[in-house]
């Protein structure tokens, strides 16, 4: 009897093994079937999540801009040092009163479908953002009108001098020049048409986005035939894909492994200091955080080195102000040395003891969760009990908007001009001033610097702002993180950028 039973089971198991063996016959490396001789190949890039949509004016997701950086153009664009350089515009002049900017467009620029890109397209794109009140409308706050005086000339008229107009018009692809027909057909959400080095060929929801070289591109022709973006949210899996050769490039690396990866040469992993900053904000509408001494006490109680080590595995530079060293607006100021006694003294002065602080962090940014634990243990040493609240980002934003927090930790990413982040976060009318900081002196300086056309004077005004914000501990700045990306040995010509823009136009793939 037993023999028969085992034969029955054995047959089934054999069948199963055969099925599994059959499955393992799949090949590893896949270059998408584009094996034409002399072709540049298709680069497989793994990004950490899926774009919500591909309309550059309507998305706010970084995943979207990772793709769109390669598809669209702006009038000007930041170079490696984040200085604005010609892109679609070859040059520009400003009137003496600084209220009229005249841009000259490049000759013969075409969209990827072959239709010409003219001044009318620029006017259409900007007016779309302004009239429909799209995400980046705030960047056009001082713009009175935009006109095309001829097919090659765009005239921007302003209500007030705007020294950072170029950064507003070219800082990132959220203000890209789009095609009217593409917008009106609704195709822009999945099949946008731009004038950049690549064009979107196919968007397969949940799976991948395929770009092909844009043969109508005005700049130097890209060497690659195309780029295929896949969405791999787990960094361990993304790294495995890179090592296994299925992926040639990824920015989704497990942070704890980056230090070791930087020492190796396959895959190549590079990191550069980014322009982002991460900070702790205390709710000044709540007691006792309205007291500057309490805020300063917390600033003294923090050991930024330890926080950075835990949250970023050392891949960050501690900073007590917002702006990183490599920026033209950097202001060296670090009054808070880690000093428990000083912190205790300040708390005593404020008459605060046995304080319990609610700290809100988000699982969307795991580094805030890790950092919060270190912050909690450091504040415990000065007698503050921290209650960490970890929320998903949607709920986090809700609580922030409603002012329901004692403290939160967050970052501000891709910064170029200080007007944007200082004004939004520290002006009493700022759109992101949820911690309700108000200092008339800072308000005045921010208003002044916003329209100051003398660069040296403007820098000085922002230096004063920076100092005052740190002294008031409006935000308690922690660090500027590095941006780390990795690519396989086959990839050449790629540079990691401090603003996290992903540009594949100069990249080649050895095969």
């Amino acid at each position, binding site marked *: 009897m037993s023999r028969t*039973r085992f034969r029955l089971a054995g047959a089934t198991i054999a*069948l199963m093994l055969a099925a599994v063996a059959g499955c393992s016959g799949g090949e590893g490396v896949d270059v998408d079937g584009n094996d034409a001789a002399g072709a540049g190949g298709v680069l497989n890039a793994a990004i950490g*999540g899926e774009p*919500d949509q591909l309309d550059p004016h309507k998305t706010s997701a970084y995943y979207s801009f990772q793709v769109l950086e390669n598809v669209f153009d702006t009038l000007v664009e930041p170079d490696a040092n984040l200085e604005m350089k010609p892109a679609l515009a070859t040059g520009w002049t400003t009137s003496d009163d600084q209220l009229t900017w005249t841009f000259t467009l490049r000759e013969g620029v075409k969209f990827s479908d072959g239709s010409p890109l003219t001044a009318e397209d620029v006017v259409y794109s900007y007016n779309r953002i302004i009239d429909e009140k799209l995400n980046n409308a705030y960047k056009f*706050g001082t713009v009175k009108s935009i006109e095309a005086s001829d097919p090659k000339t765009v005239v921007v008229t302003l209500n007030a001098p705007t020294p950072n107009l170029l950064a507003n018009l070219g800082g990132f692809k959220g203000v890209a020049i789009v095609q009217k027909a593409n917008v009106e057909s609704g195709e822009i959400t999945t099949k946008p048409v731009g004038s950049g080095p690549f064009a979107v060929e196919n968007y397969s929801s949940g799976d991948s986005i395929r770009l092909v070289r844009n043969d109508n591109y005005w700049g130097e022709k890209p060497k690659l035939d195309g780029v295929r973006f896949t969405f791999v949210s787990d960094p361990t899996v993304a790294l495995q894909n890179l090592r296994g050769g299925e992926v040639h490039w990824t920015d989704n690396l497990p942070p704890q492994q980056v230090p070791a990866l930087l020492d190796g040469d396959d895959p190549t992993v590079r990191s550069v200091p980014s322009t982002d900053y991460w900070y702790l904000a205390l709710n000044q509408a709540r007691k006792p955080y309205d007291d500057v001494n309490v805020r300063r006490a917390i600033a003294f109680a923090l050991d930024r080195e330890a926080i950075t080590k835990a949250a970023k595995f050392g891949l960050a530079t501690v900073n007590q102000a917002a702006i990183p060293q490599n920026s033209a607006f950097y202001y060296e100021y670090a009054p808070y040395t880690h000093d428990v006694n000083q912190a205790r003294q300040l708390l005593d002065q404020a008459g605060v003891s046995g304080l319990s602080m609610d700290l809100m962090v988000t699982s969307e940014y795991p580094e805030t969760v890790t950092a919060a634990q270190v912050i909690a243990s450091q504040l415990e040493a000065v007698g503050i009990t921290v209650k960490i609240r970890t929320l998903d980002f949607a709920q986090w934003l809700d609580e922030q908007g409603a002012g329901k927090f004692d403290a939160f930790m967050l970052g501000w990413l891709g910064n170029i001009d200080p007007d944007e982040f200082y004004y939004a976060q520290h002006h009493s009318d700022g*759109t992101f001033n949820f911690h309700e900081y108000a200092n008339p002196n800072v308000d005045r300086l921010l208003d002044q610097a916003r329209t100051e056309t003398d660069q040296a004077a403007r820098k000085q005004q922002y230096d004063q702002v920076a100092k005052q914000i740190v002294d008031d501990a409006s935000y308690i700045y922690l660090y500027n993180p590095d941006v780390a990306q990795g690519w396989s040995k086959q990839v050449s010509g790629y540079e990691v950028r401090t603003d996290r823009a992903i540009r594949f136009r100069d990249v080649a793939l050895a095969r």
Partner: protein
Amino acid sequence: MARFVIRRLLQSAVVLLGVTVVVFLLLQLVPGDPVRVALGTRFDPQTYEALRARAGLDQPLVVQYFDYLRRALTGDLGVSFRSGRPVTAIVLERLPATLSLAVTAVVFAMLIAFPLGIVSAIRSGSLVDHAARVFSQFGVSVPDFWMGIMGILLFSGVLGWLPPSGYVALTEDPGRWASHVALPAATVGLVTASILTRFIRSSMLEVLSEDYVRTAEAKGLRTRVVVLRHVLRNALIPVVTVVAVQLASLLGGVIVIEVLFAWPGIGRLTYDAVAARDYPVLQGAVLLVAALFLLVNLLVDVLYARLDPRITVK
């Protein structure tokens, strides 16, 4: 039979209507403002109001619901708040990936669970039986995402046999589909197999103690005939239910596994929609999953009658 099916379909429609109400109301209770999530951190108040109005979120709830229902009846599940694309298309294009993963996982689970369950029931107390119990204990206790990562590290990292993640449509390239589906399906399948093995074993044991089994053996039938015709067939009834429930729940998308393996199915869609508070997509996905669940249950009821003539469909 036809009347039974029609009646069940009508009942299903009522259940689906209930699902829309519950999902719609539940979403209102979930904290998190979709407009703020969509805008990110940089915007001005006018932009906020404009987007809120465009998405119809400024309308009263009742208006929003009936508007949704009216369009849903015509097959239009609305427009994704985030991507601006029709929800019906978004949900349906994710179906093949989830279907192929769920079916493969269940087949894989059955291939393990049937021999293991049968053998450990027939040879209860044997080494195989003990091994089977250890296996199923392991399968239900170890978290599937951990098993998935271990699978990736072993089969993709160390051995290099399988790609670590990604998806190729079955219709596009069956070979590459198989190599991509193997790891996620095995991960999900192991859990299902553990549950199934236990059920098959206990169900078989129950039937094995029946008088007619002894009679069958006594009249000299071969073991294979007794096991396959008399025991297995009778033991299958509860097993069919478990397989169906497992399949139905897998059709709802295996969220963690789909996210881990970058598998473009319903589970991952749901996950992304929750994070973005994309209500229309979430409603559409839940509605589809509920519909699939009802369909599978209907098929099970019909299958019962085929398996056991004592059960009649009225």
